[in-house]
């Protein structure tokens, strides 16, 4: 133990001591508020706790006022919200999927750490979201990853991408969680600001939901998992160095290193503990470590907790108490256990060789008190730390460039006209980094483990069976298009939701609920704040119309270089339920002689399109029109068609339009197709590359065609006959023919050539 420990007693007797609150990221008025709450200056431990818990990351101080709209959607009783068992505010939302099963899922960002140390940043991102899911009492069953990088050929992308992918795989594979999908997107706006989001989904019986609540005076708080080291507390060292301690602070790493093996045994340990019903409440340790876990547990429970901080098992004996409170060491969990169950709890931990230590006790003091070798070093009302942080209505201004951007329509761009040019464009587009095969990435992820993966990449949605006895399953898809977001953040967010929703529906699952990760620039920039407000408003409005509530998510601000913010990138993950996974609909053409139909309406919509981006480096105009009523009707049709076995394949159209959609359907099983574009829309180019929303291509077996058409008519969905499957080429009648081999070569070569 080095140096001097700041106690509550000292704080009372030295009210004027200088404190480095600004270095810890607190504003003058925030510091004054803390003094007001406590009626004295905070101790350095208290200052550490408030500063991390009141940070943007933990307190949501800039986003809170906007996120409230999501809760309002639920409060107003959207169709679908009755399926929600646990909503925003808990570690993750929980949805009732029927037959007594509940599913919890959430997407979260680990952007900045992945930029600093790609492998460990991405790995610990997966680790963190998996613990969130465990803290609901669920067994994690699958993960997904949403990755965004600068241009595919930029040097920094080459530094970051291989490490990020290896990290996602290294951690997830070692946990034994199948990776069932995700995204890989390249755009200059992410150069220097890669986005690494990760999603986890877990399953439990509805009655087994656990919450992060510390109730019951006398119950014990047990910390279990890895020992605590100095991980991720580079920032707090100022507490030691600048005021209270003359000793030179030991070096503290700002990077966290993950130990997936420890997390794997932690998962098994938790599952046994849950099965034996040994915990009252449970909480993962993520950002803000013990500060967060103890204050949230206490604040959600009966309101009081005492912690013996010196009992925390350490990896680094030089850690000071305030550092222990803030350490973000990975692979740790906190449980609240009744005294009579403690031995049983510890026995399970011992069997898995997991260190477990009683570090605190629940009481009815309404205070969170922290003791260090007999001295009281913190004494705070827990709600003021965990839930009553500052809330800001940040100024917002619609950027003055927005009008000019929208006016810069892609209609001025040169379009291919000859059949030769169209053919070239198709081949060029399937090879574009954003549209090319992602196998180089996804082949590094285990999609088979656990034996319940029914659909995974490159399918539209990941589908996992959750009950082998009945065939009940869930589907998940995530989407987000930052270019659309930049052109119109309100519509961009709605399009992200529309696409994920449609991807779930094409697989045959009924969309139920969503999670989101809102990746934006600095909230202190009024233009960014406007984008954020527009995106959240768009999302909330769309939730209401589609009848799918937001169950939880994450906000990541400050994704910018200098004053250049990333494209506003709300990533939306939609969860659907499918009662019988054998009815799932895959994306690829699987048989010859099926009729191929286009559902939905194609307009001349190329603003923000992949074509404008890849061929012309252009971003301008308006994104495709949002049509939520059409999306909803289309989804209902697709879910019905799947249940009745009417379609053999279905694939949604998005980036790259019909050309890309058909190419992917052909390449899935090397079954060709011949189509005519005459009835789609005016000219072949628009038909092939427009990105109009609410569109899907289906393949229907001859004997089901009448039934399907009747169902589509009843649903009011426009149907255009495209052609028939078969052969070994993608043939657009009268325009061009591309052999499967040539198409595959173009589609498969891009990523290996860039990153091998």
């Amino acid at each position, binding site marked *: 133990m080095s140096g001097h420990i700041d106690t509550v007693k000292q704080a009372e007797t030295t009210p004027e001591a200088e404190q480095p609150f600004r270095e810890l990221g607190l504003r003058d008025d925030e510091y004054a508020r803390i003094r007001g709450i406590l009626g004295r200056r905070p101790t350095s431990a208290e200052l550490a706790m408030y500063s991390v818990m009141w940070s943007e990351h933990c307190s949501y101080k800039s986003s809170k006022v906007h996120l409230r709209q999501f809760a309002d959607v639920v409060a107003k009783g959207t169709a679908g919200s009755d399926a929600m068992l646990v909503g925003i505010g808990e570690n993750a939302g929980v949805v009732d999927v029927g037959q007594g099963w509940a599913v919890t899922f959430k997407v979260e960002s680990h952007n900045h750490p992945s930029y600093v140390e790609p492998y460990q940043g991405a790995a610990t991102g997966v680790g963190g979201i998996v613990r969130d899911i465990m803290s609901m009492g669920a067994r994690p069953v699958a993960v997904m990853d949403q990755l965004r990088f600068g241009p595919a050929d930029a040097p920094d992308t080459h530094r970051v991408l291989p490490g990020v992918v*290896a990290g996602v*795989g*290294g951690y997830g*594979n*070692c*946990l*034994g969680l199948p990776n069932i999908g995700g995204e890989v997107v390249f755009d200059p706006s992410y150069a220097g600001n890669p986005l690494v989001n990760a999603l986890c989904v877990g399953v439990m019986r509805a009655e087994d939901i656990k919450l992060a609540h510390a109730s019951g005076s006398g119950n014990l708080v047990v910390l279990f998992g890895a020992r605590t080291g100095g991980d991720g507390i580079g920032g707090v060292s100022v507490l030691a160095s600048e005021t209270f301690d003359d000793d030179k602070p030991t070096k503290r790493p700002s990077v966290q290193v993950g*130990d*997936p*093996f*420890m997390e*794997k*045994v932690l998962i098994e340990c938790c599952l046994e503990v849950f099965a034996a019903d040994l915990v009252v409440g449970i909480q993962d340790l993520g950002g803000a470590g013990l500060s967060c876990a103890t204050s949230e547990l206490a604040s959600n429970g009966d309101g009081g907790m005492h912690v013996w901080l010196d009992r925390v098992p350490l990896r680094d004996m030089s850690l000071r108490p305030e550092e222990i409170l803030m350490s973000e060491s990975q692979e740790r969990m906190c449980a609240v256990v009744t005294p009579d169950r403690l031995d049983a709890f510890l026995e399970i931990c011992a069997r*898995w*060789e997991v260190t477990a230590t009683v570090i605190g006790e629940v009481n009815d003091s309404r205070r969170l008190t922290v003791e260090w070798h007999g001295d009281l070093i913190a004494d705070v009302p827990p709600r003021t730390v965990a839930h009553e942080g500052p809330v800001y209505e940040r100024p917002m201004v619609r950027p003055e460039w927005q009008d000019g951007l929208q006016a810069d329509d892609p209609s001025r761009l040169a379009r291919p006209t000859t059949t030769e040019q169209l053919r070239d464009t198709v081949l060029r587009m399937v090879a574009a980094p954003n549209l090319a095969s992602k196998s180089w990435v*996804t*082949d*590094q*992820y*285990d*999609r*088979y*483990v*656990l*034996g*319940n*993966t*029914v659909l995974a990449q490159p399918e539209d949605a990941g589908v996992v*069976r959750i009950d082998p006895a009945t065939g009940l399953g869930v589907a998940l898809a995530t989407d987000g298009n930052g270019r659309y977001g930049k052109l119109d953040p309100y519509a961009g967010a709605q399009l992200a939701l529309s696409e994920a929703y449609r991807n779930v529906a094409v697989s045959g699952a009924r969309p139920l609920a969503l999670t989101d990760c809102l990746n934006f620039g600095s909230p202190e920039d009024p233009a960014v704040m406007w984008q954020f407000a527009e995106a959240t408003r768009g999302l909330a409005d769309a939730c209401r119309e589609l009848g799918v509530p937001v169950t939880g998510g994450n906000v990541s601000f400050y994704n910018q270089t200098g004053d250049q913010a990333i494209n506003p990138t709300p990533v939306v993950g939609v969860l659907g339920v499918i009662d019988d*996974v*054998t009815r799932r609909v895959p994306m690829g053409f699987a048989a010859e002689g099926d009729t191929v139909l286009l559902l939905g309406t194609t307009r001349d919509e190329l603003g923000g399109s992949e074509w404008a981006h890849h061929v012309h480096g252009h971003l301008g105009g308006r994104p495709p029109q949002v049509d939520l009523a059409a999306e909803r009707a289309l989804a209902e049709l697709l879910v019905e068609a799947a249940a009745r076995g009417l379609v053999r394949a279905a694939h949604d159209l998005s980036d790259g339009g019909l050309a890309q959609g058909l190419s992917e359907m052909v390449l899935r099983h090397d079954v060709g197709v011949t189509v005519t574009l005459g009835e789609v829309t005016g000219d072949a180019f628009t038909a092939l590359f427009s990105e109009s929303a609410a569109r899907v291509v289906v393949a229907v077996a001859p004997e089901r065609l009448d039934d399907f058409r009747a169902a589509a008519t009843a649903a009011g969905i426009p149907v255009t006959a495209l052609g028939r499957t078969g052969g070994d080429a993608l043939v657009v009648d009268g325009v061009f023919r591309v052999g499967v081999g040539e198409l595959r070569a173009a589609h498969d070569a891009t990523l290996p050539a860039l990153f*091998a």
Partner: protein
Amino acid sequence: MRVGVVTFPGSLDDGDARRALGLAGAEPVALWHGDVRLSAVDAVVLPGGFSYGDYLRCGAIARFAPVMERVIERAREGMPVLGICNGFQILCESHLLPGALVRNDHRKFVCRDQALRVESNTTAWTTAYAEGQEIVIPLKNGEGGFVADDPTLDRLEGEGQVVVRYLGSNPNGSYRDIAGIANEVGNVVGLMPHPEHAVEALTGPSTDGVGFFTSVIAGLVSA
């Protein structure tokens, strides 16, 4: 027919192996790494995963688990043992099988549907296949390159101990495209690919993996 599946800390495919055995008609028995006795099982599967995180070398620490002492002893007496992926690595570390498995030559984890040729159908785990039969089952590993010195490789080839071989492009730099081998007697088999992930059409690329499990059951029944 009771077939044990050992769970080490970090085992991942133990549940899948039990499921596959059940589908094939055996009674799967969960064994724990700390067990000092093998509760009356007729055969044992060492499943895939990352035992002890694979931090030192794959399988290096698991080999010293208490249960392995009995597994090694019984294997030497002729009990059928199948090591899949991490299990294969453990068998090599235990010297029940020759050679070793090293980092993939491309240095990446690889998960793919792998075409294989069954080279030997005389081991305890492959009698259900025809010699030369081509099958597709998942492959997923980071350290799947089989290596051994030339005399050992020649002996494996000569004695018919190469059980399955990769078809198409070599996925990991394995010497002589070897995907799985057996000991001299044929009761101990190690495989990098995962037959337990190819037992249901719904979740696997095929059901080609079932044969490994029905083989051992048939052998035990007739024994």
